C-alpha cells in the first residue's frame, strides 16, 4: 500500500488547501516572470513592427526611441536610392493625450506612409488605412472599436481597423495614422512660438520633418555596409535592427527590467523557503508515526519514499494550480504578460528541485528519529 497516498487521502482537505496556497504563491511567481518577459517584448514591439533592417536617424543620436531624432522627410527618397535598399519609409512617433468616452486616453501616435514600411504588422479587424486623411488603425488595448471617432489635435479621426499587441515601452497603446496627418498633428500640438516659426518656414525648420527613415534591404545586402554608407552623410546616423533592439532592452527599459528581475528573484527565493518550510513541517508532524513505522520494521526506503512522494505531489499540484491560474487570468493584466513554455518549465524544474531538497531535510530528521521514541512512557 502506498503510505504517501493514504496519508494525503486521510488529510485531504488540509493537503488540498496547502496545494492551493502554494499554487497562489507560484502563480504570483509565474506572473512576475510573465510581466518581466512582457516588459522586454513590449519594449521591442514598436521597433519590430515595421519589419525593417535599418533605422536612419539624426546624427549623434540613438533615436528614435531612446533619444529624440528629427530629420527632413525628403531624406526617404535618398535612402531608397542607396544600393542594397529594397524599400524605405518615413515614420513619426509622438505621444498624445485625447479623450474617449469621457476618459483620458494616452496614445502613442505612429505616422507612416501607407504604401511604405512602417505600418501596423497585422490588421485583426476592419481594414488598413486607405485614404490619405483622418483614418486610423488602433491597437485593441486602446479600447477603441471600429467606427469610433476621436479628436486628435484639431482634426477628428475615425477608426477603420484594429491591430493588437502594439504598445510602446511605457505601455501606451499605439495608433497608426498617415504621415501627413501625423505631421499636422505635431504642428497643431507644438507650443505657439514654435508654431509661428514653423509657419514662417524660418530658422531652417520645415513642417516636413520625421523621426526616422526605416529601410528594408535586399536579401543579399549587409545591414552594416549600408549603415556605413548612410553614416557618411552629414547629420545622419544609421542603426541596424539588431543594434536598435539592443538599445531598447539595454537602455530604455533597463532599470525597469532589472527592478522586476530582482523582485522576481526575491519572490523565487521566498517561495523556495516557504516550500521548504511546508514540507519540513509536514514531516516533523509525522515524526511519531515515522518512529512507529521504524519500530514495526519498515525499511528506510519506505519512509523516505513516503516523504519524497508527498513533497513532490505537493509541488506538482501546487505548480499546476499556479500555472492554470496565471494562464487563465494573464490576459486581464493591464500590460502584457508573456509566458513562454520554457519559462514555465524552468520554474517547474526549480519547484521540483526545491521540493527534493526540502524533503531531504525532512528525510534527515526522519532517519534520525529513534524508533524507541514511539514507545513513550
Amino acid at each position, binding site marked *: *500500500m502506498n*503510505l504517501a497516498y*493514504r*496519508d494525503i*487521502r*486521510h*488529510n485531504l482537505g488540509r493537503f488540498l488547501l496547502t496545494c492551493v496556497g502554494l499554487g497562489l504563491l507560484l502563480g504570483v511567481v509565474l506572473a512576475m516572470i510573465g510581466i518581466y518577459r512582457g516588459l522586454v517584448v513590449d519594449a521591442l514591439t514598436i521597433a519590430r513592427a515595421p519589419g525593417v533592417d535599418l533605422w536612419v536617424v539624426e546624427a549623434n543620436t540613438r533615436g528614435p526611441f531612446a533619444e529624440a531624432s528629427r530629420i527632413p522627410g525628403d531624406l526617404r527618397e535618398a535612402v531608397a536610392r542607396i544600393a542594397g535598399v529594397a524599400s524605405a519609409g518615413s515614420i513619426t512617433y509622438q505621444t498624445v493625450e485625447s479623450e474617449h468616452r469621457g476618459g483620458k486616453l494616452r496614445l502613442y501616435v505612429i505616422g507612416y506612409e501607407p504604401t511604405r514600411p512602417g505600418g501596423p504588422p497585422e490588421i485583426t479587424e476592419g481594414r488598413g488605412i486607405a485614404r490619405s486623411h483622418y483614418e486610423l488603425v488602433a491597437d485593441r488595448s486602446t479600447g477603441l472599436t471600429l467606427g469610433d471617432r476621436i479628436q486628435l489635435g484639431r482634426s477628428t479621426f475615425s477608426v477603420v481597423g484594429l491591430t493588437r499587441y502594439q504598445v510602446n515601452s511605457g505601455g501606451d497603446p499605439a495608433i497608426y495614422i498617415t504621415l501627413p496627418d501625423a505631421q499636422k498633428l505635431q504642428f497643431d500640438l507644438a507650443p505657439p512660438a514654435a508654431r509661428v516659426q514653423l509657419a514662417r518656414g524660418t530658422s531652417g525648420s520645415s513642417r516636413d520633418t520625421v523621426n526616422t527613415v526605416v529601410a528594408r534591404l535586399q536579401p543579399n545586402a549587409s545591414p552594416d555596409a549600408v549603415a556605413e554608407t548612410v553614416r557618411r552623410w552629414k547629420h545622419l546616423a544609421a542603426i541596424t535592427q539588431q543594434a536598435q533592439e539592443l538599445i531598447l532592452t539595454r537602455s530604455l527599459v533597463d532599470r525597469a527590467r532589472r527592478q522586476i528581475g530582482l523582485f522576481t528573484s526575491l519572490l523565487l527565493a521566498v517561495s523556495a523557503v516557504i516550500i521548504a518550510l511546508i514540507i519540513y513541517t509536514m514531516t516533523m508532524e509525522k515524526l*511519531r*508515526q515515522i518512529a*512507529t*513505522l*521504524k*519500530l*514495526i*520494521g*519498515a*525499511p528506510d526506503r*519506505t519512509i523516505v519514499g513516503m516523504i519524497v512522494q508527498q513533497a513532490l505531489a505537493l509541488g506538482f499540484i501546487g505548480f499546476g494550480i499556479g500555472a492554470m491560474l496565471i494562464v487563465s487570468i494573464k490576459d486581464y493584466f493591464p500590460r502584457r504578460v508573456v509566458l513562454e513554455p520554457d519559462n514555465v518549465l524552468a520554474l517547474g524544474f526549480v519547484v521540483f528541485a526545491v521540493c527534493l531538497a526540502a524533503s531531504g531535510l525532512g528525510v534527515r530528521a526522519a532517519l534520525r528519529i*529513534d*524508533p*524507541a521514541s*514511539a*514507545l*513513550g*512512557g
Partner: protein
Amino acid sequence: MTTLADPLVRLDRISKHFGEGETRVDALRAVSLEVHPGEVVALLGPSGSGKTTLLNVIGCILDPSSGSMELDGELVLKDGAWLRRDLKRLRLDKIGFIFQFHNLIPFLDATDNVALVLQLAGADATTAHERAIGLLKYLEVDHRRQAMPAKLSGGEAQRVAIARALANKPRIILADEPTAALDSKRAAIVMDLLRRVAVEQQAAIIAVTHDEKIFDRFDRIFSLRDGWLESETNSLQTA
C-alpha cells in the same frame, strides 16, 4: 514453572547507562534473565527503575553498554556489540511491540494497520488483507475493521494494536503497560488474549505493568529497582 525448551530470550549481564560523569544514569545494571516459550512475564518497578530501557534493549531498539543477548536461540549481542546489522528485519520477523498508547498509524484503517506489517515482511496485498482480517477476528474486533484509529475505543484500538503485534507470528512480544489505558474488564480480556497467544504460538511475552489487578495473570514477575533486577517471583506459586 520449569520448561525443557530453550529460552526464547536470554540476557546475560546487560548494563545500560546514559550520559557520563556528573550526569551519568545507570538505567540497567548487570541484568540477567531468561524467558521461555509459552511464558507470560511481568516487569515491575517504580518509575525510573529501568523497565522501558530493558524492554527497548530486548526489542533491539536501544544499544546496551555491555552484556550479551540471545533471541530465539540466536546470539544477537555479544559484549555490548550487535552481531546483526539488519536489526529492523530481526524486529519484523521475531518481535511484536504493544505500546501503552496504541500507536496505530492514524491514516490507515484497522485492517491496513495490521496488513502493513504483513506487507513489510513480504506478503502480497491480498494475502496480507485476508490474514489481517483473520487476526482481527481472532481478537474479536473485526466488526471495526474499516474504522480509522481515531474512531476506535481504547480497548478496540489496543486489540487492533495487539493484532498488529501478532501479525508476523513473532515469538517474542514486548508490551509496555498494555493495559494502562483500559478498565479492569478490558484489561482482563487483553491479558487472557496474551496468555492464549503465548500458549498457542509458543511465544514469550514480556509486559511492563503497574497494574496490581492483573499480577496473578503472569507466570513470573521480575522486579527492577535502580537498574538492578531485585527479585523474581513465581506468581502461580504465591497464588
